[in-house]
């Protein structure tokens, strides 16, 4: 609620922040920008909770026998770290914060199509979060965020039901957000804004929404069946009673693999905006980048079986899933090449958002390429379930999605808050995060190849050196994350007032005031040119 206490600026024009005061004006708001801020505060809270679990884990793993907690507690730490980071931070981060704020602005509308559903989605998210936090307080849960049966359904006597309800409930928040975006992008674009004039961020939000809408319900029903099995022991997934535990994995990964694309596609959209702005260039191969987002969303649904190569899935199914997993790498590669080519003959400046975007490209490239090791059957047999996997998905989710999220927050912060942050500190933080991230997770690739399995509370002594390196890196990374938190909060009160378009960017969101008025635009804008008209003609677009 800290933003609610923003000091009213006497001379400030009316905007969405000072339009109304008091907690009611926030908790019952239908303004997409205020709801975005509600989400911003809540995902930051969950990020800090999930992050503190990660810190505890890394401290624990500095010694082979475990330095801090009992193995049972360690298992609860990594489970809650996973559940909170995935369902309560990464999935809502860019869509529900930046997407909520920007989609109506970018399409030139006064709000999303369904503002009440939008507010409802935040409440649903909070209810889901409460169940999850309750489970943490009431003793924790130790199934891993993947909830594999029959361990979760029959053998674990921790708070499985509470977490299952939490994840089930929060899924609907994601569904409503996706639904709202799809309808808004289809039906509420302002005059002149054709599909191929849309900023790439909108394309990526559209692709993300497709996954949210098509995938999340399957997770919901799977978790529902899991809860039934956990409560009644009737044999849905329990082999002792005739059920098949692999069926749970199929249904679970049908959503949970595409969920990775829910995290990474929005970050790709953010990076497209940032690169175009800070190199003052149209995105190279705009339509190909746009289509590759949709291709990733569609193909991403057909690769889930690569999580199950060693589980006793049929080898032929494995073959198909391996092939499709390789195919989904191609649109990602195309995007990276196009971003790089965008820089060619540009006019590049190095403000903080650009540093994050460059960090994103580097880390995402490595994360993507190491994915090939896991899509390939023969090497996956060795690497599956080891720290290699942990390193790989952290390169994608933290190196990719979180870098993109932070880049986006820095890019649009002047628009969101109406204030500027100290660019030097932002640059320092970006570099610290990049270094800390690599120190933390690169050693884990080697650990995994050497054979250290994930989710181990203690480990053979020969793995200690690399684990200590990783923990040291985590310290740097943790510090790196705290710096933006401090200066962004500082800037809300003391930062210099931001002009409507501080970066000289194109895009409708920069044509209105910073922060925007409640109705977004004094008059519904009309678009007359393509996105990213940074060319020399001094376009009238902004």
């Amino acid at each position, binding site marked *: 609620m800290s933003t609610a206490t923003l000091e009213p600026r006497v001379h400030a024009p009316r905007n969405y922040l000072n339009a109304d005061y008091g907690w009611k004006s926030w908790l019952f708001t239908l303004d997409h920008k205020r709801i975005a801020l509600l989400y911003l505060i809540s995902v930051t809270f969950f990020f800090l909770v999930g992050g503190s679990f990660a810190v505890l884990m890394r401290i624990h793993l500095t010694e082979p026998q475990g330095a801090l907690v009992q193995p049972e507690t360690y298992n609860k730490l990594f489970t809650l770290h996973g559940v909170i980071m995935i369902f309560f931070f990464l999935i809502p981060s860019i869509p529900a914060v930046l997407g909520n704020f920007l989609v109506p602005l970018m399409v030139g509308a006064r709000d999303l199509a369904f503002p009440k559903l939008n507010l409802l989605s935040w409440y649903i998210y909070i209810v889901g979060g409460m169940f999850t936090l309750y489970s943490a307080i009431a003793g924790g849960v130790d199934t891993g965020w993947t909830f*594999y049966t029959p361990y979760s359904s029959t053998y674990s006597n921790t708070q499985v039901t509470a977490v299952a309800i939490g994840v089930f409930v929060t899924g609907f928040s994601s569904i409503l957000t996706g639904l709202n975006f799809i309808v808004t992008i289809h039906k509420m674009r302002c005059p002149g804004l054709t599909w191929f004039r849309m900023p790439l961020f909108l394309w990526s939000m559209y692709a993300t929404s497709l996954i949210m809408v098509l995938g999340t319900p399957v997770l919901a029903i799977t978790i529902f069946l899991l809860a039934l099995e956990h409560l009644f022991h009737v044999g849905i997934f329990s082999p002792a009673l005739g059920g098949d535990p692999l069926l749970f994995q199929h249904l679970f990964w049908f959503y949970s693999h595409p969920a990775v694309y829910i995290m990474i596609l929005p970050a790709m959209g953010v990076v497209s905006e940032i690169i175009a702005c800070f190199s003052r260039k149209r995105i190279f191969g705009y339509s190909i980048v746009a289509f590759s987002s949709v291709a990733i969303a569609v193909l991403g649904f057909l690769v889930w079986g690569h999580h199950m190569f060693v589980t006793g899935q049929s080898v032929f199914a494995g073959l198909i899933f391996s092939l499709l997993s390789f195919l989904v*790498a191609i649109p990602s590669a195309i995007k990276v090449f196009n971003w*790089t080519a965008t820089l060619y003959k540009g006019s590049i400046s190095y403000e903080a958002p650009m540093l994050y975007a460059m960090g994103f490209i580097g880390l995402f490239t490595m994360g993507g390429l190491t994915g090939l090791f896991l899509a*390939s059957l023969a090497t996956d047999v060795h690497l599956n379930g080891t720290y290699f996997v942990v390193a790989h998905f952290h390169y994608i989710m933290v190196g990719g999605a979180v870098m993109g999220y932070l880049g986006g927050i820095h890019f649009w912060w002047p628009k969101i808050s109406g204030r500027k942050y100290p660019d030097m500190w932002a640059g320092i933080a970006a570099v610290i995060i990049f270094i800390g991230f690599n120190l933390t997770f690169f050693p884990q690739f080697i650990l995994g190849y050497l054979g250290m399995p994930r989710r181990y509370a203690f480990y053979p002594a020969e793995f200690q050196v690399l684990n200590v390196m990783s923990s040291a890196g985590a310290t740097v990374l943790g510090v790196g994350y705290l710096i933006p938190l401090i200066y962004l909060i500082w800037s809300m009160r003391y930062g210099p007032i931001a002009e409507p378009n501080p970066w000289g960017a194109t895009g409708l969101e920069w044509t209105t005031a910073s922060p925007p008025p409640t109705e977004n635009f004094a008059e519904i804008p009309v678009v007359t040119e393509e996105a990213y008209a940074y060319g020399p003609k001094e376009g009238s677009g902004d």
Partner: protein
Amino acid sequence: MQSMPFQPEQASSIAKSVDELYLFLTLVTVFFSALIFSVIFYFMIRYRRRSPDERPKPIEGNFPLEVLWTTIPTLIVAVIFVWSSMLYFKNAEAPKGSMEIFVTGKQWMWKVEHPEGQREINEVHVPLGRPVKLTMTSEDVIHDFFVPAFRVKKDVLPGRYTSLWFTATKVGTFHLFCAQYCGAFHAGMIGSIIVQEPDEFERWLAGGTPGESMEQAGEKVFQSSGCSTCHTPDGAGLGPSLLGVYGQPVKLTTGETVTADDAYIRESILLPKAKIVMGYTPIMPTFQGQLTEEQLNDVIAYIRALGKSQPKPKEEGKQ
């Protein structure tokens, strides 16, 4: 133990080929990462903003270039896919005549049984240079049998058998890990694979505690659990005789015919009412939870022996 810090030991016949693919993938990764990094660095310096009003000329894109950088990754992943799938399929099936070992996963230990009757816990003795096939199952949750030095891994599932195989190429002791999270002491579900010279292995097999063979153990369970009171050899009991049944077709009350293989016997013990033999009533109680996986396997081994070593009985069961 590990002298090379960046590579696990290569101690099986397939390890080298997996490492070659791994190396190739690493080279691809390093090459493309370096390419992207250096191009970005070059562009960021070469095209840095020199004056605030700079307005570079827009570039739409370049279709041939797009085709090029779609084709090249496609070709590379095609190569990797074919290479890795061939390797995987080559390594999927155990060679004929592999030595067999039975492994049961249980929270949080590995129980190992050799056909000769030797039993061990969290240790697997194997001979050098001979293909060994592990048949595995779990008594509770999903585990995973993982030997990094051999580059093999397979989930161990409850209610089902999975298998993996390897040929050890180095004498020594190697890590055995559980690689599928299985509960509180998942990290403690580790053990060692002990590779010995063949003659040394034979000595080990013969020596130590001379355990009884699986079928001997199975016979004991068969008696002590009361199976023998109904399943009498002459077929006069309440249940069908099990002589000569193994591997033969069995007619069911539903009219279907099934083969009395391991899966059927296992099901009949655990879920006796699922498939009733023609002419008998579903009165057998379930032995679910009363027999351990090991005992179950022993009984199956015993029934198998009944099927092989006895002549086929007269056609008295057909009604």
